[in-house]
């Protein structure tokens, strides 16, 4: 299976006085859903860019599974980054590899409730729908590692909640190893198997906490709030992030 081991000894932007990321270690088990929680600007997006191969200028090693070829990465960006001149379906089909059949998109569209609008252009759809398309696109490549960079940040709370629950539904049907970046602790608790709290400048792990709430209870806001309070009380070191 695809265990993921990340080591970034040093990532310093050209011209920057101090590293953005230093001595960073993180391992993910196969099909684990891990949330990175940290303040904005602490280097989370930089980390995802290193993992996705968009940024190669760092010291470290990223090992995804046992394979030696380049890992398949699904990346859900902060903005959906869909091609506005291609329909929903075309946007998803474009990322498929030659051996993948376009048919396999259909069940994904079904789960995300987009079958009706698959031939529409993204600009004619709501922002929430565009996010769902971006989620499907990332799942469609059947990635070894799924990266999500605050994908719900600009949505209004009810829409965010809907898309979040659809994402969980999809992930439970098709488990993947997920690294989800957020600064919203409630969102992190609702989604993750494990929370990683990050300090800034340079970015490093300060706490690694397993979320004990059962998957069936995740829609229960009271349970999430209770765990959040418990976290705040028991971990003074992460208080500044919350």
């Amino acid at each position: 299976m695809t265990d993921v081991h990340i080591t970034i000894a040093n990532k310093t932007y050209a011209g920057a006085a101090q590293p953005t990321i230093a001595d960073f270690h993180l391992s993910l088990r196969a099909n684990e859903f891990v949330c990175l929680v940290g303040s904005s600007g602490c280097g989370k997006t930089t980390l995802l860019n290193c993992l996705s191969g968009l940024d190669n200028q760092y010291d470290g090693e990223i090992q995804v599974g046992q394979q030696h070829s380049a890992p398949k990465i699904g990346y859900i960006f902060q903005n959906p980054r869909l091609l506005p001149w291609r329909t929903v379906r075309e946007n998803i089909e474009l990322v498929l590899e030659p051996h993948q059949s376009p048919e396999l998109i259909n069940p994904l569209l079904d789960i995300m409730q987009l079958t009706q609008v698959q031939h529409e252009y993204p600009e004619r759809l709501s922002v929430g729908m565009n996010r769902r398309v971006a989620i499907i696109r990332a799942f469609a490549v059947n990635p070894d590692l799924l990266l999500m960079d605050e994908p719900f940040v600009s949505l209004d709370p009810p829409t965010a909640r809907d898309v979040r629950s659809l994402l969980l539904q999809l992930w439970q049907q098709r488990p993947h190893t997920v690294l989800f970046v957020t600064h919203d602790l409630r969102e992190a608790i609702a989604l993750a198997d494990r929370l990683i709290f990050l300090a800034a400048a340079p970015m490093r792990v300060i706490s690694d906490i397993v979320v004990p709430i059962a998957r069936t209870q995740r829609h229960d806001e009271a349970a999430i709030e209770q765990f959040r309070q418990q976290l705040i009380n028991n971990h003074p070191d992460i208080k500044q992030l919350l």
Partner: protein
Amino acid sequence: MQFNKYLPSLSLLVFLAVWQGAASTLHSNNTLPAPYTVAIVFWQAVVSGQLPYHLGMTLMRLVVSFSISMLLGCAIGIVLGRNKALNAFFDHWLVIFLNVPALVTIILCYVWFGLVESAAILAVVINKLPNVIVTIREGTRALDTDLMDMARCYHFSKTKTLRHVILPQLQPFLMGATRSGLALIWKIILVVELLGRSNGMGYQLHLFFQMFDVASILAYTIAFVAVIQLIELLILKPLDKQALRWRR
């Protein structure tokens, strides 16, 4: 509101009336022939096959030189837009070629390569190419880096990136280069033909000038304008519509 529909036809009629009025006042069929006279000359030139032949030759040169300039110009423009070092190196070349007068390149091409078809086409291409390069380079600089990163992250091949990510973003620039290109190339081709070819619109206009045949000059001009309008109406407008169908 219904009235607006007829405005274009009405304006055309008014134009013809003004022309007719001016021709009647001047009373000189040599300097300004009446629309009716021009129509007859036009019809005779069409029937004799002269006008279609020469217009066809000019159109052929237009299509060939336009295609070469657009293809080369897009390729070079995209490369320069994405590569800072190459752009810094070739920027001055571009400025030089942009500012060499068309007449100079035409004369030089004929002097160096002789009065042959390829020299004529080359002269037109050299005149148009820098314009296309500059337009497409600007467009390439404005490409959305978010979408380029997305394409890289999902391992889009070069051709896939070009076709689905880059070219749609360059579409307005391509249409701009096409429209300004057609207008420019027409005019240069006429000069090229006038100086060194024995057929085509430019060659014919030169003959008519020597014979002070204003009616023929006007008849050929009308054919000319009509063809350009047809290209706009039948090719460019539908392309515009097709390319912008995704907009809200």
